[in-house]
């Protein structure tokens, strides 16, 4: 089959979805093609903007952003555009009645510090109400509650580790295990199973009863991400009001539940914007003449399954994990357009600290300020292809805590640029 559209977005991770929504908002007809559902659905759904600078945790991401190297995606866009991207993303969430917010300190937007199931704290920026940790740091008594059969969270380990942190020198931690609401299970229970159960009437009443037994005795109750599967935050605020206790979710390993809530929100919006999704489509052929991509296609067994003509393309295929970059023992490649990937800078092995930043994380494609791909001499390579998300190099999302932040900022701007180039009036 052949299809024509104004803007084609390849990839449906956070960068691709944001790009699709921003191009659609500017009046373009948008098609999203992806193979696989992207990392969003398994994440915790909190939007990290910039949590660490030079390996140090920071509170004000905007101040640190001005100090980033000129090749960092945030520097290429400039703080103002990053802020505009986040505003536009927040506006989408607000329109969908999703309850994301940014913590405030001394009149400034700052990072929140979120507790994890391992009893560590992780900085993040734009977060849902269920993760609001503002009360945790002033609480006297905190309960960490697990659920029988949920092996991902050991409340004792979590409480023990949190209690060791200087922030909680004055806090006492207690732990409990709620009885499981799932009578017979053949598999290990996940937070997602419980969240889906809590979304039902019986599940909600189970949770309310469990929490009710402890609510009076504690200032904060930390639970795994089981507070339903909607991003509306309605259940969270209901529970907090009813119990007079601050119930808060912990960050966990995949599936992180929060990501599913966020993804469904974005997909609902996309459906309303009449964005079309093509699933299980691995785009592996590009027809380029000069600097212009004429069309791309999905080819299998030498047969073209699908050919897509788009005025402009947003390449949001992710990094090594997402499938946008491909590694061989000695190099990293981008396979669709065969764009040059700058060689990895720095010591590849024998890192003394295995948890420290690794240069491979910085690997990715080079872009200019309009997010078009460029070569080592900064020459533009394609005039109607814009890059977004993890496939762009020059930043380390794991170390900086900037994954979804960069994805949303570049996704939004790539969408705007694609709309502009498609002849739509888009202001950026």
């Amino acid at each position: 089959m052949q299809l024509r559209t104004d803007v084609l977005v390849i990839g449906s991770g956070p960068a691709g979805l944001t790009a699709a929504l921003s191009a659609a908002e500017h009046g373009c007809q948008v098609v999203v093609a992806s193979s696989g559902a992207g990392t969003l659905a398994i994440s915790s759904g909190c939007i990290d903007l910039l949590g660490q600078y030079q390996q140090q945790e920071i509170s004000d991401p905007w101040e640190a952003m001005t100090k980033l190297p000129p090749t960092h995606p945030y520097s290429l866009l400039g703080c103002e555009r990053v802020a505009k991207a986040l505003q536009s993303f927040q506006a989408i969430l607000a329109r969908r009645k999703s309850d994301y917010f940014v913590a405030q300190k001394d009149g400034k937007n700052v990072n929140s510090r979120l507790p994890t199931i391992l009893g560590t704290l992780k900085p993040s920026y734009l977060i849902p109400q269920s993760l609001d940790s503002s009360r945790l740091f002033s609480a006297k008594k905190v309960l960490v509650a697990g659920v029988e059969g949920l092996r991902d969270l050991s409340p004792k380990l979590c409480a023990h580790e949190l209690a060791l942190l200087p922030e909680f020198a004055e806090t006492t931690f207690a732990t409990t295990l709620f009885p499981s609401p799932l009578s017979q299970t053949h598999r290990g229970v996940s937070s997602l199973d419980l969240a889906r159960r809590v979304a039902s009437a019986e599940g909600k009443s189970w949770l309310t009863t469990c929490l009710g037994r402890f609510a009076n005795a504690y200032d904060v109750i930390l639970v795994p991400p089981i507070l339903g599967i909607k991003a509306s935050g309605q259940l969270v605020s209901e529970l907090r009001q009813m119990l007079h206790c601050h119930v808060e979710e912990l960050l966990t390993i995949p599936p992180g539940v929060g990501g599913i809530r966020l993804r469904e929100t974005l997909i609902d919006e996309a459906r309303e914007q009449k964005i079309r999704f093509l699933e299980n489509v691995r785009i592996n052929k590009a027809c380029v003449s000069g600097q212009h991509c004429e069309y791309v296609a999905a080819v299998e067994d030498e047969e073209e399954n699908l050919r897509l003509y788009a005025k402009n393309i947003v390449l949001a295929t992710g990094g090594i994990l997402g499938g946008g970059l491909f590694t061989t023992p000695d190099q990293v490649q981008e396979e669709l357009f065969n764009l040059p990937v700058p060689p990895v800078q720095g010591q590849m092995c024998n890192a003394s600290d295995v948890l420290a930043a690794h240069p491979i994380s910085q690997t990715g494609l080079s872009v200019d300020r309009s997010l078009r791909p460029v070569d080592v001499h900064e020459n533009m390579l394609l005039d109607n292809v814009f890059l977004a998300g993890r496939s762009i190099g020059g930043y380390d999302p794991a170390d900086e805590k900037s994954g979804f932040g960069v994805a949303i900022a570049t996704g939004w701007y790539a969408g705007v640029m694609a709309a502009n180039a498609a002849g739509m009036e888009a202001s950026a």
Partner: protein
Amino acid sequence: MSIHLDPDKCLACTTCVVHCPVAEATPAFLGPRMIGPAFERFRLLGIVEDDSLKYCANCKNCEIACPQNVPVATINMLARMAQCQEIPPSFRDWIVAHGEVLARGLKYFPAWLKNMGTHLSLMRTLLDWIGIHKDCPMPNFAKTAFRDHLPRLSQKGFAKSVAFFPGCYINYYDPGTGFDLVWLLNQAGYRVFVPKDFVCCGIPLISGGFEKDARDNTRTNLRVLAELNAQKIPVISACPSCRLMLTREIGEFFPELMPKEKISIDDAQSFLLKCIATGELDIKTAHNSSVNISAIYHAPCHLRAQGAGLPALELLSYFPDIAICEANAGCCGISGSYGFKKEKYAIAQSVGARLFQRITTSGRPLVASECGTCRLQIAQATKKPATHPLTLVRAALQGRPLTLG
């Protein structure tokens, strides 16, 4: 049976677990990651099969979601076929997998008698007793099967011809859709024929674990397809599951049967789109009819799994008289014959609930979907008529209002 697919592409990321509708519906199922790639390692060690393998509906949502291209559902079906060689499937499982054999056996019984069998409450109780749920939707046999009726149509004066793989559903239960396709292809200048040797694509046999029968059918179909392809006669299918099986799956299940030349079968909607593009099918007349159809479209999972987009939506969008929106609400739950089975019925209903609700609240009076059993399930749950998209296309092109049952 000794085919094992490499499980090591799996990164254990859990994306498939999040998107598996059966895992969502019941915690009795290990879920795609565990029963597929993870358990495959135990299988390679010869460890006994996990009983919850029976819950996999072969709906393919795990594969659609997997970022690493792990053939999870195929791993599951290969394991099921191996398991069925050890423990033979039940009588009920034989029946639901061998619809075509049954229908052929019952050929000389009139449709009303056969349909009494599927609708009389006494019969339903009996079927329930052997394990076919008494409330599950069941298709009606048509008076005359499509393949028996087709030769009686006069299709004269067409220079080009196209071979049609009708599949069991259109053939026995829904010949009307087949005739709509024939009408449309006639408009495009093609004579339509069904090669006499085509048999069931085998996907119900695979899902039921009947490896030998599926292999036999595959061998036969491949022979016919190779002949047609060699003669450059286009072959088309209007059923997503048949096409999925015949294009993507047989190579995974039966690599030893695959011919060197590529076998190609086009999607009927996709073929018609090409006819429009080449000018073979003239759709100008559609612009001054006033049929006014408003429908909601459900994309079958086995179509989404093909990774070739949604050609039906594309085709429908050519007709100003058809207002179509997409349900985009996942699996309907039936998964071929899965939802007929007594112990799976509740799971199938729970899987489809989101889709049923979206269709009900859409306010659209009509549902369109290519898959016959999806339509059966949706029509029963939502009480709205459900038709094949080709029926809408014909109505719009012919300027003939739809008559809906």
